[in-house]
């Protein structure tokens, strides 16, 4: 079933929407949740929460592509879970490593304008990622959106792990310069 048909099921409030979503995107969302949570029970709960969030979002939302839509929901729900467990820096998987790698890029301090800054940062990060060369963007998103290990990214894209490491290093340097120029860090 294509995405438009599945979205139509949500709009029609048909329970088949969840079944079709599970069939088409269950493995994808579980993979995203697992990379962060590293617990079968937490992963299943997170994915169930993602289906509920999708059910509540449609209508009146109508995403053209369900993969990024569900991916974002699942990723953020998993991050929320880790945050609640105070496990962002102590959890399993590659997340602690990713945070360490990105630590130089994270704006410090807190301010009354934090919410506005977060929105502006999100927009800037999106533009940054969009401007990366395709190969570099795939590696960057594999690491910092999907939280795959260097070896996994290398295996999936047919690279040597060393090449993945150096591509990520270059991307982070570019990101840091970009955020410095715009005053975020």
């Amino acid at each position: 079933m294509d995405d438009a048909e599945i979205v139509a099921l949500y709009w029609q409030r048909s329970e088949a929407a969840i079944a079709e979503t599970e069939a088409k995107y269950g493995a994808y969302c579980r993979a995203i949740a697992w990379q962060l949570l590293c617990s079968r029970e937490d992963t299943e709960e997170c994915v169930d929460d993602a289906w509920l969030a999708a059910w509540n979002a449609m209508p009146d939302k109508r995403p053209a592509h369900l993969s990024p839509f569900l991916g974002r929901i699942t990723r953020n729900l998993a991050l929320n879970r880790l945050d609640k467990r105070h496990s962002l820096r102590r959890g399993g998987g590659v997340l602690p490593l990713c945070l360490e790698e990105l630590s130089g890029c994270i704006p410090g301090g807190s301010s009354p304008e934090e919410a506005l800054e977060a929105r502006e940062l999100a927009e800037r990060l999106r533009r940054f990622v969009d401007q990366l060369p395709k190969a570099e963007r795939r590696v960057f998103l594999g690491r910092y959106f999907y939280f795959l290990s260097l070896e996994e990214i290398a295996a999936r894209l047919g690279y040597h792990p060393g090449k993945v490491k150096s591509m990520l290093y270059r991307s982070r340097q570019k990101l840091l310069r970009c955020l410095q120029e715009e005053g975020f860090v």
Partner: protein
Amino acid sequence: MTSLQFLKALDADDRALLDAARALGLTEARPALPLRRKKLVRTLLIAAVLLSLLGVTAYAADFPGLRALLLPGSQGMAYHAADLPDGERLLTEAPDGGMLSLTQPMALPEDLDPRIAVKVENSAAAWAEWLAWKEAHPFEEPEVFRPPEGTGFSETAENPDGSYTVAFYEDSRWDEQAGRIVGVRLIEVRTATEEEYAADRHYKEVMGHLGIAGYDHSYGVYDEAGAEKLEELAAKYGLALRRERTVLSPQTGEPGPENGDSLETLVELLSEKTCSAPLFNRNPDRIDHASYFQEGSFSLSYSVADASSGEELSCYVCSSPYGTLSSGMEMLEMEGDLTAFQSRTHTAPDGTELTVLFSGETAYFYTWLEKSYFAGRIGGLGRSAAPEAAVTAVLDAIAFTHIGV
């Protein structure tokens, strides 16, 4: 800013995420069809028109035997799927792959009974006309809800006066403060009336049900005009239509093992409706799904234990009566390497001759029965110690001469 906030802010456009997910093999494990809907419709239209004008392709020899199954135009439109050690599935494009139909022959043997051949050709011609009519009469949502170019996300909100505001965005993102997904980079805002909103809901409902009641959803009948046209074509070409599907499986409450009824009961019921006598000489070990139409079409998904290894072989069979309007796309199988298949014939205990295509991992088979075209797939053969014998066992368990009413 907290680490959590930064990670959530680290996002990308839908296009970038889709591209990365596909490149990394994180998409759904088995895409339903590798082609976008519109392109597949055109491919089939071309193939169907050729079939109807020039005659269904006749083949003199069954080499490699796949031509009867291979959907025209689908060669190269497939993926290899490989299981990685961590359980994930890696998808890569397969130039030697293609889509195989189990419900309609894509090519006919030269020595086929001409009474059967004309029915198959009529179905192809009727389908070509039906597709052409659907292209000329598209079923669409109201103009106001049709997304403009570049839309990746839209949302609708009701206004106090009963009208609706429809906003179209290029993309979407997670808004931490709002706690939900919001649109990004507004393209256009429109206002819809109550009537347009209701029409859009109706459109969504019809699409959600994959068509209006009374017709198999594979026909794509969305309104009364479409129903009228389909009935006209069926009458013109002397074809039956698949109407309401009856599903026999434990999940539906129909007879099945989970409802206290036995697998034997389910086979009996399916055989009563679609065969002249029991479908199997030897019942399978498990039935996952079974369904049939009143005109005699049926499909069955089941498992049998391989005698040599005890491992489960997954089987899927379809029976498609001659003279039923069919696209051949009701059940498509994607194969990554068509060159891996070797062709042979097999004669079942009841004398039915089958063409068998075997790759070591998977086998396809098909036969021209008296009343229907019967095709199937056997998977899981890679785990068998004697795969050829396993294929023979599966085929010999089916009572082919009983199929059809």
